[in-house]
């Protein structure tokens, strides 16, 4: 191997606002670094080929697939996972709406769903249900049938935009 190629990589980045320094195998993807090295098990590995969205986390403010990103590529990045987003309160309204509307069953997809939903509801506008469905279409949920998730996100988007929620009627 050429001396320029490394099999282990030294990294410095921030996770949930905390500085992290660690050395990881070069082939280790972000989701494994979060789960195995940093013990942040809230995000899940569902398919490891970029389709299911369970490993979706925020890198520099944007959603990424934790399984399609090598940790080695993230030197200097700012990473947020469900643990940090919970502690900061950034998605408290989304989380409350998911619980209220029962927009989760087994909960395995939920941290990824919340990460994807976060970037939609913080746009400030109220997306149509079709737009919510389209935006969330990269996150697989086997349990809910999606409607409750769409409802919860719609409620939060409307509340954030100061528009009255209209889907609470489904919660009897």
């Amino acid at each position, binding site marked *: 191997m050429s001396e320029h190629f490394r099999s282990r990589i030294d990294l410095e980045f921030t996770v949930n606002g905390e500085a992290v320094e660690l050395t990881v195998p070069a082939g280790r993807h972000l989701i494994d670094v979060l789960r195995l090295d940093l013990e942040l098990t809230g995000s899940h590995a569902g398919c490891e080929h970029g389709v299911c969205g369970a490993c979706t986390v925020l890198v520099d403010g944007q959603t990424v697939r934790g399984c399609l990103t090598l940790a080695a590529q993230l030197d200097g990045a700012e990473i947020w996972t469900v643990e940090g987003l919970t502690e900061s309160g950034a998605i408290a309204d989304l*989380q409350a709406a998911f619980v209220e509307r*029962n927009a989760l069953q*087994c909960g395995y997809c939920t941290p990824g769903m919340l990460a994807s939903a976060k970037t939609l509801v913080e746009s400030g506008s109220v997306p149509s249900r079709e737009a919510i*469905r389209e935006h*969330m279409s990269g*996150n*697989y949920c*086997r349990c809910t049938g999606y409607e409750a998730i769409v409802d919860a996100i719609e409620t939060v988007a409307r509340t954030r935009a100061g528009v009255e929620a209209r889907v609470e009627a489904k919660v009897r």
Partner: protein
Amino acid sequence: MTIRFEDPNRPNSYIGRTVPRPNAGKLVAGRGRYVDDIVLPRMVHVAFVRSPHPHARIGAIETGAALAEKGVLKVFTGKDLAEICTPWEGKLAHLQGMKTPPQHPLAVERACWVGEPVVAVVGRTRAEAEAGAALVEIDFEPLPAVTDIRTALDKGTPVLHEALGDNLCFRKSNEAGEVDRVFAEAPRVVEATFKTARHTGVTLEPRVIITDWNGADGQLTAHVSNQAPHMLQVLLAGHLDIPESRVHVICGDVGGSFGLKVHVYPDEVATAAIAKIMGRPVKFASDRVEAFTSDIHARDHEATGRIALDENGMILGFDVDDWTGIGPYSIYPRTSAVEGLQVTNLIGGPYAFDHYRCRTSVVFQNKGICAQYRAVGHPVAVAITEGLVDKAAAEMGIDPIEIRRRNLIADDDYPKTTAAGLKLEGLSHHKSLDSLIEAMDYEGLRAEQKDLREKGVHRGIGIASFIELTNPSPFMYGIGGARISAQDGCTVRMDPDGSVVALTGVTEQGQGTEAIMAQIVAEAVGVSPDLVRVVTGDTRVTPFGGGTWASRGAGIGGEAALQAGRAVRQQALEVAAAMLQAKAGDLDVRDGIIVDARSGEERLTLAEVGRIVYFRGDTLPKGLPRELMQTRHFITSDYPYAFTNGVQASYVEVDTDTGFVKLLKHWCVEDCGRIINPLLVDEQIRGGIVQGIGAALFEEVCYDASGQMLNGTMADYLVPMSAEMPDMVIRHVETPTAESALGAKGAGEAGTAGAPAAIMNAINDAIRPLGGTVTHMPFTPERILRALGTITD
């Protein structure tokens, strides 16, 4: 004591209300604890070398290179594990004539499907175990494969297991009346063939197990993503020769199950056997690619069906020949015959008629093992039934609603035993249909459909009535000798401060078991649900039970919880009566306070009862029972199953140029008896419908003729995603079962049972005027265009 369910203002009226799920908060915070989140000291990881061949003799196995790989600790073959783990056979004694050969944790002589585990490689990390597995060399000698269902029993087809003589696992015909005569004489006979595609569960959390053998303590611990912890306890104990009391199975948070995680898997048993050999924790976390080949499959059915009617469109009988391929082994311990068996029971289920024949032929093939998966057999039976009913209606010029009105069993005609032999306690087909018609504005939709058709827009409305089997008794598995429990239990304990812990044998996989148990126990004891802590999925602490499958959690586990909670309440009242020098019968518990039952006057808190019982028992009369912990078990006995019913409707638009189907809306009215938590029931139905939509439009495990799987990733096995799914309107009718005080039946499978048929009928309603019908699921754009004759080559 009966609960006045009809009075929503009764004290402690938690049953029947939407209350939030107590375990949802941790899940949205990422604080769930799924098995793959668990890391134990000295834990190692196993990866499996799986057969790349549909059928092959296993020759020499070269493991040297794998063992030399950095981080690889051990390599095990089938012969190694066979020394400490006995094989199993997925058979039930009451399924006469059933055959299946012994199955080992790792294949020993032959590999019989692509994905069968053959060699296990243990490494310090999963990555190292995988790297080692890639270096194992197995000398496979390919053997001829059986793949086609209909020719599996032909003379020219090779026999998959020579010792069994042929490829027939099981065959049964359910027959009543005079089928041949009636079909020969009937004014109208309509026939069609149906196919339901082979599916797999695609739980978002793949299967995962950690097993640990503590030799010093003689104890096996298994953390596993599973629906039936006690079943697994018993079976692991049996095959690894450990007393059942020394096998501890823990099912914490489970990332979806749907029946996929109620079976015994060879790789999971292998993981336990390896832990027993290595004496340290071993984790097996299935990855997605091996999930596609090693998780159970389901629904691979082909059927020819006939319906006979009189000149008024009254159904005279059904005659169905169903065939299903189940892979090379019958699943353990439930068997792979039950899906076909269900089809023979459920055809024509909602309708009144006298002449019935349904035969199922369950054959072996070199593909993944098929087994019980959400709504076992129902989607197949409902599709055949409702496809035939709609085809008959179309041919006779009868509206689809009208033909159902004429033939659905009358709501006052119960109890009833159907021609297929099902004992029905009480159903509400007509009430449900009325509610559906109103909910969807049937006439309005028909008018809109007609208008749009004139503009070249092809929309269709599809209806599907169904029954669903829930709350199974031992008639399902126990009588066949399987160590699968149909009873279930709950222990309720009041702690000193008056809060309550409920330990239940049914499990939580997201349905909301913990929420409904908290509601039931709260109402039974007389405390607020947020004071009830529910514990599930731990064989060491919960009463022995069956777990959660076949929509049994609410109806069976719930009744046990209700009775245990009431027993605790009664004990608390006895103690309070002694303290107050009153009669227990004059007191009640309301919201944690002992009150005078008549006036409602507050007398004493439960916390005071707890303080006295646990810390100042000396002040109570000697000999006064003071057990604030009570266990009750419940089993159904009047009926083998509690059937539920419902009806679904689908509204679709078919692009007749491309064959694409757009789902516009979906409705379901269903009757699961007493509803404990309306929101949770609605979401069970919605989730189930979308799983059924997957069946109708997207999902199909594809194999080539040689038995190679063609689409084993999530990029090409299409599951339903949010963008294409419709909004769904859910309504209920409540016909409680009289078998229990609670009156609950199951609600977990109704959505999945009926949705495929509703969508099939809707598509056919849209395209029938153009001369096409589809009955081969999934209804891909291409299949629709072929039905229309647009594509012919």
